[in-house]
């Protein structure tokens, strides 16, 4: 980039009596021009494709896109489908347990680590590494550990507990809980990191004052520290809810939605319908329902975050 011809900064040049020069006008628009490609593409990609998907969901599309308008037919089929209802029920079970347990374990770990202990760095590294791995990798590993024939069951029987049974992975009623185990294992360290940062951000003098007043440590955590981390709880909840709703990889690697469709979640349902069953309209409708769910949670959150910054 050559320097502008005169020593004048571009802003000053644009206010001269002769009117802005071409060069100054270019400099004035340059930032917007730089921004334009990524924003135009992002908006086309985000909002354009959302609209397109929305239209597919009210079309007669099956194996191929078909733009004949059929109203809410696909949504009616969707909510009459047993498989979709199982996916929704699973989402409720999974997200409830996953969010609750990940928060509880994460908070406990953060409080334990906050006790000025040696080896904190090492422990933090150990608790958090699952987050660096792909759900496909961890799902594959858990599938092997939970394997009824050779995994934990085999181990416990080898240790003398010959009646020990652990067949959740192949039990349609229990399989969704194995997904919870793997999910919590993967994400609890991340919650720990957020909470630990929150705890470290609290002013030490508040704790000192409470100690002088004779408050016990559990009481200080329960009454002072935890309540003052409310924003951290809220962000964590947001992120975990978001992870739960879009969970796809973990289920695919651990159970592939099975046995039967017992561990289907909306994300795996959408994939199966749209890409392996040739039910494009139905897949699009389920994606729209997922979008609506996420939007209901995230839009108020983003709105308040952006407002509070002003």
């Amino acid at each position, binding site marked *: 980039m050559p320097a502008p011809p005169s020593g004048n900064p571009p802003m000053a040049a644009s206010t001269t009596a002769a009117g802005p020069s071409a060069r100054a006008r270019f400099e004035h628009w340059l930032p917007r021009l730089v921004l334009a490609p990524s924003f135009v593409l992002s908006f086309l990609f985000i909002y354009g494709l959302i609209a397109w998907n929305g239209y597919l969901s009210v079309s007669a599309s099956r194996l191929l896109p078909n733009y004949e308008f059929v109203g809410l037919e696909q949504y009616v089929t969707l909510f009459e489908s047993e498989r979709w209802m199982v996916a929704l029920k699973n989402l409720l079970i999974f997200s409830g347990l996953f969010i609750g347990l990940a928060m509880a374990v994460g908070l406990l770990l953060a409080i334990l680590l906050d006790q000025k202990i040696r080896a904190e760095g090492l422990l933090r590294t150990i608790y958090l590494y699952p987050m660096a*791995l792909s759900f496909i990798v961890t799902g594959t590993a858990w599938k092997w550990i939970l394997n009824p024939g050779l995994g934990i069951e085999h181990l416990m029987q080898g240790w003398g507990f010959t009646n020990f049974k652990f067949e959740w992975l192949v039990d349609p009623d229990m399989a969704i809980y194995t997904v919870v185990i793997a999910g919590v294992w993967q994400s609890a360290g991340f919650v720990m990191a957020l909470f630990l940062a929150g705890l470290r951000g609290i002013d030490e003098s508040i704790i000192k004052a409470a100690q002088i007043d004779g408050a016990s440590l559990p009481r200080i955590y329960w009454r002072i520290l935890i309540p003052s981390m409310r924003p951290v709880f809220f962000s964590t909840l947001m992120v975990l809810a978001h992870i739960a709703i879009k969970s796809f990889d973990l289920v695919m690697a651990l159970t592939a939605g099975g046995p039967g469709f017992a561990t289907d979640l909306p994300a795996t349902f959408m994939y199966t319908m749209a890409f392996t069953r040739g039910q494009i309209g139905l897949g699009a409708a389920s994606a729209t329902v997922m979008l609506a769910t996420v939007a209901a949670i995230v*839009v108020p959150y983003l709105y308040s975050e952006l407002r509070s910054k002003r």
Partner: protein
Amino acid sequence: MNSKLLHRAILFGLLGLFALFFLLPLYVMLVTSLKDMDQVRLGNLLSLPASLNFASWDKAWHHACTGTDCRGLQPYFWNSLAMIIPAVAVSTTLGALNGYVLTKWRFKGSELLFSLMLFGVFMPLQVVLLPMSQVLGWIGLSDSIWGLVTVHVLMGLASTTLFFRNYYVGLPDELIKAAMLDGAGFFRIFWRIVLPLSTPILVVTLIWQFTNIWNDFLFGVVFSGADSKPITVGLNNLANTSSSVKEYNVDMAAAMIAALPTLLVYVVAGKYFVRGLTAGAVKG
């Protein structure tokens, strides 16, 4: 001070138990990958391998079968690498420029544009899968590595822009004003002043994008063709191939191979990885 000692013992006991729980899958993956099939079938989950046996790593890399294709994970690994380099480079570069404009060259409506883009960070990707596969077909990029690169760049822009914007808000505007008075233009200021101050956020963003794209499965499984499947898809196909006898040791070696790059990044630059995670979670 006996009760204090007891407290410490309980504290470390709990921390140690959790550490074992978190390490268990990694340990099981590693020891299983080094056993032969006889030992996998007869021994237990936690026992150490009888001898160091890298045969299953060799098989996972060179010969393991996914369906009828028996070239191991190798081609998938190279696909991921070929995809990740341009995708990370382009999305990070654009994110840096966007963040720079959004904080140092604000114009009317730029904040609104940014908020609209933020939704892209949270949007469930299922919503774009169907139309996107059509778009990729039109522009001739379906089933190709470049198609995956395109999707990852588009999808990553919202987060990279967010990262750089939040970082550049903290750079003093006076720096930019002073440079403008000296006659420096838009790109010169970026190149000479802003970029040299960006190392921390650059590292965070590179790591964040690298882990996300390497670990992606959804786009990989939907948008890749026979010759462009990334490593996660390769691993999943390999572990779910039901044709012959299940070789858990090969599966675990394959999982380790798929995990190694991000694990390495985490061990070497864990601090920045955590910063990326927290920056993604707590806006502003």
